[in-house]
């Protein structure tokens, strides 16, 4: 939750959505709460089927919540049909009108709002400029490529200058290079227009690179909300840790409390410390998460912890080292190839390693 309530554009409060009440009842969203600030680029991230689209449809007004409320600038949206909400959507399949030209598609929302013709024309021009489609204004939707359709869908949704723009996996149909370009483009549009973006994706990289804040969802729940750095560095759930980026999940037991936080043991091996937020009793079993690139690797006996190399994979910019701990758990460490040669470790060598306390996340399951 954010502190400054004045700047909240969308507030979702205790919202649940149950489809097909009765025998076939399916809980698509379970008591979801979140606040999204105005001008924020907010991302809903989660695997397919976790309820992202459902949440967007509730905000747009295509579905009604089974429980809870959605507020826009403090005003309850419950009674407002979709065509009265100052919220526009970029649909997953774009849903452009096939019987209209690009310019007509963009003008549609403004016409429905009853804006004067002159204003419509100038806004359409402005939007065409914004998405760099001016030359194609009179083309039909069927005569342009997927990437261009995507831009038109954006322009159409932005033209009425909504308070909030909802984007449902808008880039998923594009090929890699185009997707990268559009990520930058989208971010630029959001900064230029100052409109709140609620962006849905199942691509963690996309979420990390574009968002101000991310909500990670699973099975109709929000597991964690935070900045990309927050989510990446301090995952609070095993699922969040595993879904975003590469990570080592290790079973550990707690030792005694230390000045830094908490001593952790991997089997019999000591020498790892974490910053423990909560009080954990000695001897408790828990799961830790360490990013491969946060592990400091060194030759034998240089660092407190040990492991046996099982595989070395060269990736160009970095090399991935697979190794087994004495208790049998497998781990991976990533090491920048910052010089030409690198260490001469071979499979079967014993290496040593360590990780700083703030690189270690203690997870809830």
């Amino acid at each position, binding site marked *: 939750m954010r502190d400054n309530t004045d700047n909240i554009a969308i507030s979702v409060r205790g919202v649940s959505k149950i489809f097909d009440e009765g025998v076939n009842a399916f809980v698509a969203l379970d008591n979801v709460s979140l606040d999204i600030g105005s001008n924020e680029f907010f991302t809903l991230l989660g695997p397919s089927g976790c309820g992202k689209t459902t949440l967007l449809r509730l905000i747009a007004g295509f579905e009604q919540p089974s429980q809870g409320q959605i507020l826009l600038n403090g005003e309850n949206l419950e009674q407002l049909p979709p*065509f009265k909400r100052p919220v526009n959507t970029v649909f997953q399949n774009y849903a*452009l009108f096939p019987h209209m030209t690009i310019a007509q598609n963009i003008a549609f*929302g403004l016409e429905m709002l009853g804006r004067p013709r002159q204003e419509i024309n100038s806004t359409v021009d402005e939007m065409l400029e914004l998405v760099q489609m001016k030359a194609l204004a009179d083309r039909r939707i069927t005569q342009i490529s997927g990437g261009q359709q995507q831009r038109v869908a954006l322009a*159409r949704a932005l033209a009425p200058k909504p308070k909030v723009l909802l984007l449902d996996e808008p880039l998923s149909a594009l090929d890699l290079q185009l997707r990268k370009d559009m990520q930058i483009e989208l971010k630029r549009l959001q900064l230029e227009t100052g409109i709140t973006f609620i962006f849905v994706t199942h691509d963690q990289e996309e979420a990390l690179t574009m968002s101000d804040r991310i909500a990670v969802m699973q099975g109709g729940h929000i597991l964690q909300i935070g900045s990309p750095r927050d989510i990446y560095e301090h995952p609070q759930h095993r699922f969040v840790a595993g879904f975003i980026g590469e990570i080592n999940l290790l079973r550990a037991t707690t030792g005694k409390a230390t000045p830094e936080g908490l001593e952790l043991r991997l089997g019999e091996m000591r020498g790892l410390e974490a910053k423990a937020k909560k009080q954990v009793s000695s001897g408790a079993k828990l799961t830790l998460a360490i990013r491969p690139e946060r592990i400091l690797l060194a030759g034998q006996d240089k660092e407190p912890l040990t492991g046996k190399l099982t595989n070395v994979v060269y990736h160009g910019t970095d090399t991935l080292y697979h190794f087994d701990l004495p208790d049998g758990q497998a781990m991976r460490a990533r090491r920048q190839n910052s010089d030409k040669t690198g260490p001469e470790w071979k499979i079967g060598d014993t290496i040593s390693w360590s990780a700083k306390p703030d690189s270690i996340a203690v997870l809830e399951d």
Partner: protein
Amino acid sequence: MAGRLSRTKIRALLIGPAAAVIGIFVVIPLMLMAWISIQGRDYSGGVIWGELSGEAYLRMIFERELDDSLAVNFNYVLIILRSVWLSFLTTVISLLVGFPTALFMATRTPKWKAILVFMVTLPFWTNLLVRNYAWILLLRDHGAINGTLSWLGIISEPLPLLHTQLAVAIGLTYSFLPFMVLPIYASLEKMDLRLVESAFDLYATRLMTLRRIIIPLAVPGIVAGCILVFVPSLGAYVTPELLGGGKTLMIGNLIGLQFGAARNWPFGAALGILLLALVMISLTFYALKLKNTGGNTQ
């Protein structure tokens, strides 16, 4: 070389049956009809083969007086105009009833769609004659409608329903309504419903969404439906015969009369050619309409 030859033969053999069917059942009868329409009339029925005459076409507008001079006679023109008018009326009523029906059907769940499509085609399982007779029972002076109304005390004298233009229009609508519903349903059914949501999202009310999105996308279905209702209505025989009585003849009945009681084959054939021309005109209109929408129908 031999392979090429046999392929040509295979093609000929494959096209042959279709070509034969079209030739025997369409081209030859049409040529015959066109030929008969310009033959001399045999007063005992049939034609005098080989005696060329434009009399049949003249007869549509003129009447030959006893002294062989021509006098204008609008009776047949009137029947032709009435046919066009009644077909037009039928098409309009069918569209007004059929479009909402198709829209309703297209927005149901898949299971209901299947059931509803089946129900729309259900009347085809009974004979057209029987279905029109059923309307006689409903519309006649002491039939179901008048009976109910007078039993309720709303009317004292039976309303003249049967043997009116309205009765014919109702009968034709009833007969051809599925031809309107099904093509419109087909075009609405394949329409992406997300376009409707998209319109709502862009501040369009329900009525606006209907006008700006749903109807334009259903145009191919609407035009096809109108043609499929208008064309058979124009040539209708059974319905005006049963429900229209003697006062509301349509072209179909007039043609029937020429080959029957009136024994004027050339005139009957000429009327047939005229009917064909009217159909061609409406089909040309259809083609032009499709071209205007750019064939953009998905």
